[in-house]
């Protein structure tokens, strides 16, 4: 069994371990990208009707009072602008995470976008006519935040992603910037 030393941590590890870590990170990155891709699918322009009902949800099931103030004062009065921005950002998040391009930048954006989603729906809970309760599972959003943090810190696009193929070829000032976000 061959042994390599991780360049950053200096921790010795077998080639098989390194390969398994790379495959795991790539799979996680693609899975999260796939989730964002699906999230973009149900936000239907030009009116974004269903999405608006989710944006209004924290007013009925509050999680974090300052976020509710932002929803009332900024988001709802400019809802269409907000909805288009979210629609385009979620489509781009799915795209860039799946191919692993500028992954650290997009993982950071995904992490930031996970917060308002958490503040919007974490306490959502309704009881139907048959007495069944339909509610969110708040831990899912903690996991979402944690996974984006992992993709960011591990630079997951360098493992079976375009960042890994291209970052050594990026040159000049733009290349330096791209290497920083990849």
């Amino acid at each position, binding site marked *: 069994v061959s042994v390599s030393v991780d360049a950053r941590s200096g921790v010795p590890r077998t080639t098989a371990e390194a390969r398994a870590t790379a495959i795991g990170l790539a799979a996680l990155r693609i899975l999260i990208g796939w989730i*964002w*891709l*699906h*999230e*973009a*699918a*149900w*936000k*239907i*322009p*030009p009116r974004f009707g269903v999405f608006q009902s989710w944006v209004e949800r924290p007013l009925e099931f509050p999680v974090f009072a300052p976020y509710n103030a932002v929803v009332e004062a900024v988001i709802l009065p400019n809802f269409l602008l907000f909805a288009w921005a979210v*629609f*385009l950002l*979620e*489509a*781009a998040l*799915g*795209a*860039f995470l*799946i*191919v692993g*391009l500028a992954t650290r930048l997009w993982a950071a954006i995904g992490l930031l976008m996970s917060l308002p989603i958490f503040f919007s729906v974490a306490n959502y809970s309704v009881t139907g006519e048959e007495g069944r309760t339909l509610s969110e599972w708040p831990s899912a959003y903690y996991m979402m935040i944690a996974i984006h943090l992992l993709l960011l810190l591990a630079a997951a696009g360098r493992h079976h992603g*375009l960042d890994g*193929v*291209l970052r*050594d*070829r990026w040159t000049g000032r733009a290349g330096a910037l791209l290497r920083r976000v990849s």
Partner: protein
Amino acid sequence: VSRAEERPGDVRTAVLCLAVLGIVAGVAGLGLALADGRPLLDTSGTRVLGWHHTSPFGGLVIAVLSGVALVGGLRGSRLLAGLAGSGYLLAAMAVVAGGAVRELNVLGGTGSTLSVLFALGAGLLACAPVLAPKR
């Protein structure tokens, strides 16, 4: 010799992977939309393998662009890879326009289609400038 110069095949492999992904998305979209009996320019689109949505025309556009990317990858052609990448981003703009005005959504796309087009377009345009011709 830098590490990147030692591995000229990696970029071609990446372009070929993107092209194959596009061919699967396009051909499946075209086939499923036709099997669903949708008109060529259907604006609502057919759900493709729980993945994205297209009209038959949308599937055809994705498949043709992916064919161009495939040839670009096989030949190591920066021009063809760049053309295919630009084509995907134009198609993405058409999906955005189709979101604003439903009658213009001739590709039958949704947000997930937009995501697929962004992935293929941005990926190919990132690879094209450093793609080396096949020796």
